[in-house]
Every structure is written in C-alpha cells, then in structure tokens.
C-alpha cells in the first residue's frame, strides 16, 4: 500500500511538472529566441483559455476549440509584436515594463468582458487505478502533451526553415542579416508562436485550471522562475527545471499545503540562482 501511495504521489507530481512545462514552453521559446521576457505571457494563457471556453459554450467540440485558441493568440501576439515589442529590441527591461502594462490591460479587459467568475468546463471523465488509489486521467494525459509540445518545438527549431532562421538571428544577428534573413519578420513569427503556445496551454489546461481573469498571475510566477533558472539554453533547461522544481513543489504540496509548496518553489529557486547566478545552463555547450 505504501508503494501504491508513493506511486500516486510520483505520478501526480510528474503531471504537475508537466502542467508547469506546458505553461512555460511559450515563454521559454520567446526568451530563448528573442531575448525578450514577455510579462504578459500569463495573460496570453488566459486569452487561450477564454477563447476555448467561449467556443465550447457556443457548441464547438472541446477538442476543436484548442486550434482556434492557438490561432487567436497567435494573431494577437503578432499584433503586439508589431505595435510594441519590435520598437523595444535590445531594451530588455523596457520590454518587461511594456508587457507588464499589457498584462494588466488584458486582465482588466477580461474582467470587463467576462466578469471575475466564470464556469469551468467539466474535466473529461476517466481515471486510472493505481493499487487502491484512483487518479483522474486528464491530468496524467498532460505528461504526454508536455512531451509532445517539447518534441514539436524541437522539430520546429531544428528541421524547419523558419527555425533555422530564428536560431541564426539570435546567435549571430548581424551575420544572419548579412546572408539575407529578415530578422524583423522572423522575430514577429517567433513572438507569435510563443503566444500561440501560451494559448495552446490555456486551452489544453482548461479542464484543470478554470478560466479566470487573474489565472495568468498565478501561473506566471512559476513559469518566470523556471525560465530564469533554466538560463540561456532555454528548451532543455526549462524542461529539466520544470521537472525538478514543479515536481518538487508538488511533492511538498501533497504532504503539506499548497502555500508551503509555493514557498518551497521560491526558496529552491533562490538557492539554485545562488549556485548558478546566470541560470543552470549558463555553461552548457548545447544551444537549444
């Protein structure tokens, strides 16, 4: 029985870590490929969630609402890049402040349109038995979704022409321009893809995390810490960090309270940054 309990804790922690990773990947992509921290990332997640919710309520099957959410957030992301981000390249902290302002604008708009409380959609019902325990199936499914997202982003960055251009633009910007890569268009696409990934996360997590205007704030704390702890090698770094930190916090939370889990997350983050002040991947030789 003890073993069963341990197995359930492990599985649910792995699924918490996967949920964190799903919420983080978009942020990591934008930071890794553009050097931009998007403080409105959580609000793009929220927009994805609300889009999926609205579309589902209008009668579209939930599974189809996910690509619609991705499309909507990608378009909004592209507009934001065009109007704000591309005027601020190379000014990391100004970008942070501007996207921070944006996050509060999106938050307030969501309050205006949807009110502060909205119904969630029912979690697709199926569960998995582990010995005497029974675990909800949908959160476990997130482990697979997180892995699929990682593989998708990896292939996008290594196999597609866009991915090559994007990586070239961030590694040696002037060389990329010299061989004719138009970095402003690549950047617009990157930002849009990052926002689309956030929208995907919001939609796919909707059965677990109900849409509320303030859901972005709750999520971003851990997502930001994950990205800065990960450091320059964003994709691999974020995956490892999310597993370690998200899993650890979840284990702590399952034995104590969720607030203790949050405190644990923060303290461990501070400790990791103490040991690796520029992120854990600062001295790695791989680049993705």
């Amino acid at each position: 029985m003890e073993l069963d309990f341990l197995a359930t804790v492990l599985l649910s922690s792995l699924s918490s870590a996967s949920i964190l990773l799903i919420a983080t990947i978009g942020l990591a992509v934008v930071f890794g490929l553009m050097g931009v921290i998007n403080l409105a990332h959580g609000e793009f997640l929220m927009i994805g969630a609300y889009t999926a919710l609205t579309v589902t309520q209008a009668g579209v099957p939930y599974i189809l609402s996910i690509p619609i959410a991705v499309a909507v957030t990608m378009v909004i992301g592209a507009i934001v890049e065009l109007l704000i981000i591309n005027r601020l390249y190379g000014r990391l902290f100004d970008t942070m402040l501007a996207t921070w302002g944006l996050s509060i604008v999106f938050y307030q708009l969501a309050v205006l349109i949807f009110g502060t409380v909205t119904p969630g959609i029912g979690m697709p019902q199926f569960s998995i038995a582990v010995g005497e325990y029974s675990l909800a199936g949908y959160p476990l499914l997130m482990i697979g979704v997180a892995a699929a997202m990682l593989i998708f982003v990896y292939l996008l960055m290594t196999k597609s022409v866009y991915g090559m251009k994007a990586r070239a633009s961030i590694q040696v910007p002037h060389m990329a321009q010299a061989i004719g890569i138009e970095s402003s268009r690549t950047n617009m696409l990157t930002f849009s893809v990052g926002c689309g990934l956030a929208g995907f996360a919001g939609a796919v997590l909707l059965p677990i995390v109900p849409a509320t205007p303030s859901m972005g704030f709750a999520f971003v704390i851990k997502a930001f810490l994950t990205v800065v702890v990960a450091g320059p090698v964003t994709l691999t770094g974020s995956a490892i960090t999310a597993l370690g930190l998200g899993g650890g916090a979840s284990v702590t939370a399952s034995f104590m309270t969720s607030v203790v889990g949050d405190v644990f997350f923060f303290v461990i983050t501070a400790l990791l940054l103490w040991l690796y002040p520029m992120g854990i991947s600062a001295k790695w030789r791989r680049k993705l």
Partner: protein
Amino acid sequence: MSISENLYKHAGLVFPAGAVVLALVFAGQIDPYLAFVATSWVIFGLLGLSLDVVWGRGGLLSLGQTAFYGLGGYFGSVVAINLAPATGNSLIWALPAGAAFGALAAAALGYVIFFARMGPLQSTILSYTFTLLLWSVTQTFKLDVGEASIGGDNGMSNIPGIVLGFGEDAEPLGPNAAFAAAIVIAALLYFFTRWLMRGTFGRIVDCIRIDAEKTELLGYDVRKYQLLNFAYSGALAGLAGALFGLWANYLNPSIFSVQEALLVPIYVLVGGLGTLSGAFLGALAIGALSFFLGGGAVGGQTTLILGGVLILLVLFLQNGILGGLGNLWRKSLSDPNEAARNAGAVKIDSTVLGEILQDAAKDAGPAKNMGTDEAFKQFGGVIPVNKVTQTFTPGKPYSLIGPNGAGKSSFLKTCVGMYKPEGGTVTLGHDDITHAPIFDRVRKGMGVKNQKPQVFGELTVADNLWTAAFARTHDTDKAEEVAAKILSMLGLEGQSGVQASALSHGQQQWLDIGMVLCLAPRVVLLDEPAAGMTNEETRELSSLVRTLAKHTTVVVVEHDMEFVRTLEGHVTVLHQGEVFAEGDIETLRADDRVLDIYLGRSEHV
C-alpha cells in the same frame, strides 16, 4: 557662472523646497477630503523614491518595492497598535519599525541577489516573484500579536491614526494636519536621500550602475554597496508602508498585489528616472489624474488606463517630465564639455611620474612580485591557459605576445580574477590569490587596465580620478590631492570639468591609465594599451611603461611589435595556451619557431 547655471546646479534643492512650502500653505486651505486623498499621493511618492534609489541610481529594476512597503506597513502597524496607546504618538513607533523591517527584508533578498552575483534579469524576476509570493502567502496568513490581529484576506484593522501629540488623551491629526505631517516627513527623507546620493556613497553607487566591472577593478566591494543601497531603498519603502498603515487605519494583502506593484515604476517613469524628486511628481500626476477622473465610467477603469500609460511611457517618454525639462534647460546653458575639443596631446613627464610613484611606494609599500604556478583554464574543449608558470618581478616590463587566440588575454584575465582557474595557483607578493575576488586583488596592489578604455562616462574627468584615488585613500582630501597630481601629469587640467564620455578615444585611454595610477598599484597589468593610439601617443605610453617598471611590476599584453621592442623588457611568447618561448625581443626575432607560428608556416602551427 550665470544665474541660470547656478539654479540648474541646485535645481534638486530649490524647486523641491519651493514645492514643500507651497504644499504646506495649501495643506491648511484645501478641502479636508482632498487633503486626505493627497496624503496618499505623498506616501506613494515616497514609495516611488525608494524605487528610484535602487533603479535610477543603483541600476537594478526591482519589482519588489511593494513587498518591502507591505512588510513595513504590516510590521510598523503591529508595533504601533501595541505600543502607541502608551505614548499617544504613533509615528515614533510605526515609522522606525516599518523602516527597519523593510530594510531587513530588502537586505535578505539583496544578499541573495548581490552576493550570488546574479544577472540583472534573474534579479528583477526574483524581486517580482518575491512580491507575488507574499501576495499569495498573506491571503491565508493569520497571527495575533498582542492587541494586533493579522487576519489573512480579512486584513488588519484598528491601526491608530497619525498621532503627533504625547499622552493618553492625544488625538489623531485631522486630514489637513495629517497631510502637512506627511509632507514634512517626505521632505526630510527626500533631502536626506539627495544628500546621500550626492555624497561619496551615491558617487560609488552611480559608478556601479555605469560600469560595475570597472568599479570593482578600482577595489570597491561592489556587492556591499549594492546591498546597502538596496537595504536603504527597503527602509524608505517600509517607512512609506508604515505611514500608509497609519493613514488608512487598515491593511490587507492587496498591498502586495500586481496592481499596486505596477504603479511604482509608473510614478518613477512619469517623473523622470534617476531624478529622485520625479517620483513625487509622478505620484502627484497619477494620483490627481485618478482623483479628477472620479468614479464613473472612465474612473472605474483606472487599472486599464494605467496599464496603457505604462506602455506609452516606455515607448515614447523615456526621460519623464523632469528629465525632459532638464534636457531642454541644459541646451540653453553653455556646454561644459566644450573644453574637450581644445585638449592637446598628452605628454608624460617621467620625473613627475617618478615622484608620484615614489610617493605611492611610501603609502602602499614596495613593489610586489606576481606569479602563476601551473595555472590552468578550460572552456569546454578549448584550453586558453594550459599550465602556465611565470614569475613577474619589478625592474623591467614584461610583455606577453603571441598570435590571435594564443591565450594572452585569457592568461591576464586569470591573473585578474575575471576567469577562475580550474587548476594551479596565482600569487601576489606572499599571498595566494587564486580564489580571491577581484576587488580583494586590487586592494592587495593589483592595477588593471583592460583593452577598451573603461571610464565612467557620465562623471567628469576629475571625478573619475577622484573615485579611483578614494578607493585607496578612503580620505576625501587625500583623494583630491592624488587626483590633482595625476590630472596634471596627464595634462588634462583644462578638461577636468568635462564628462569623460566627451573625450576622444585616445584621451579616454589615458584617463583610464591615470585611474589605475591613482590606485598606486604594486603590480600593473595592461591589456593592449597601445590599441587605437597615434604613433606619438604610443611613444609617450612606452616611456610611461618603462618608468612605471622601475617602481612596480608591469605586465603588458600587446600586438604592436614595434611598441614591444621599445619597452626593452622581457618577452614571453604564448601559443595555444602554453609558454612557447621566452627572452628579449632580439633573440625571439631571430627564432625561426616564433616566426613560424606568427606566419603560419611549417610544423609548429
């Protein structure tokens, strides 16, 4: 100096003083409700000031100011609830307690940030998440301390008002008097902060913002100053929070919310980053805006408007109101950098230099040897420093030469402490400094000049030299004296009031060398000092290096062979991270192997 110039110089004193007098006059006249609301603007201005200290002056964008503000508010209020009834006066309890707690919290967070030497992004994010964490923790945090009861999201009530009088029957001040009290408190703190930031402490904090590496190369423990500055800003924020508690008589976790935190950089940006007084102007502008928009359809969306305002500020108005006005005003004044154009060529008088160096030896002790033993540095598969053993002694200059990628600069950086070696030791005199931080090496007598000129561009030439001299002397007058000597040796007296950034590239190189000399170093390391210099300047530099070597140990990394020849010293050829050949330049010129590696022929490549 014209009246306009004089006024410009003291603008931070004259205009705020005028504003305080004006505000105090108004405080007695205005409608009590407006006075009540305006008190909060003054408090927000103080909170903004705390951010300007750490961001505008210290260079760290802290999104944790509301955390210190809230913590100071809670702690100050708890103390006031318990102790104020005994004395009547609530300020003497709440304000010091709030300031102390804010400073303590900031110091704890700052210790982690600065002593780990975190990157700027990591620091900002950590400070932001600190605020968000407090927000979520305080929602459920319940604690009774004596009479005070912290009730999670129900908040804490029964906080005494702003009470000035003493004794049991002392009454809280009315809105107008409380407004006046807040103005006086804020004014005192502003003028103190201004004094602090214009003094030595502020000068070094400014230097760290402009170039932290150079500041450390002057021997300042950068982390200590950053921590102190952060703690001071935490104290300001905590005090503002305590005052807020007394004003509102009630606190709840929303003080830690993102909406609150967002306001602080807005205040600073509206008023003007780095101006100190701008934070108050920003708080006044934003406060008045929301006040006169009122409730209604527009006023209810204050959050939305403020979010938009922040975006527009960042995009279009970087200098804020005061910064913009200051720039306009400065254009009407005569240009203090005019003198930079009239500067002549630098001429080194070796007798004067010799005297300076002898003086330095009296203060700082005899020249020291520097040595490495099997020093080893690796980056992945590349080994730029491969078991190099060298001893450098005073008398003759040492030159390190070698083709590109030979490891010259890496070796120098290993000696300086910018690279931490994986193996071997570095010694300075009798001290093992292999693991010593950079500032410690400098204090032990190492003087470093990097390849690019590192000067504090916003500071005047004289202030640059003074800052360097003060790092060694720790005495204002003595530093003045040393700086003046070096200034006259460099022949830059006419340019002493010019901003260093206005100097030409060559002059900046000389100023940088002058700063190193201010440190009275016992070992001097120069990385490509002749780069970008004219032939004439290179000749002067050669004479300086030779004179310097008579009094101290000198190591030069150089590409310019002609320059190395004129030094008439000991030459070490590095190749692929290892010592390849040694001797004087004539011997090495005759050595076929050395020619091989430079020209890329035969098997030694």
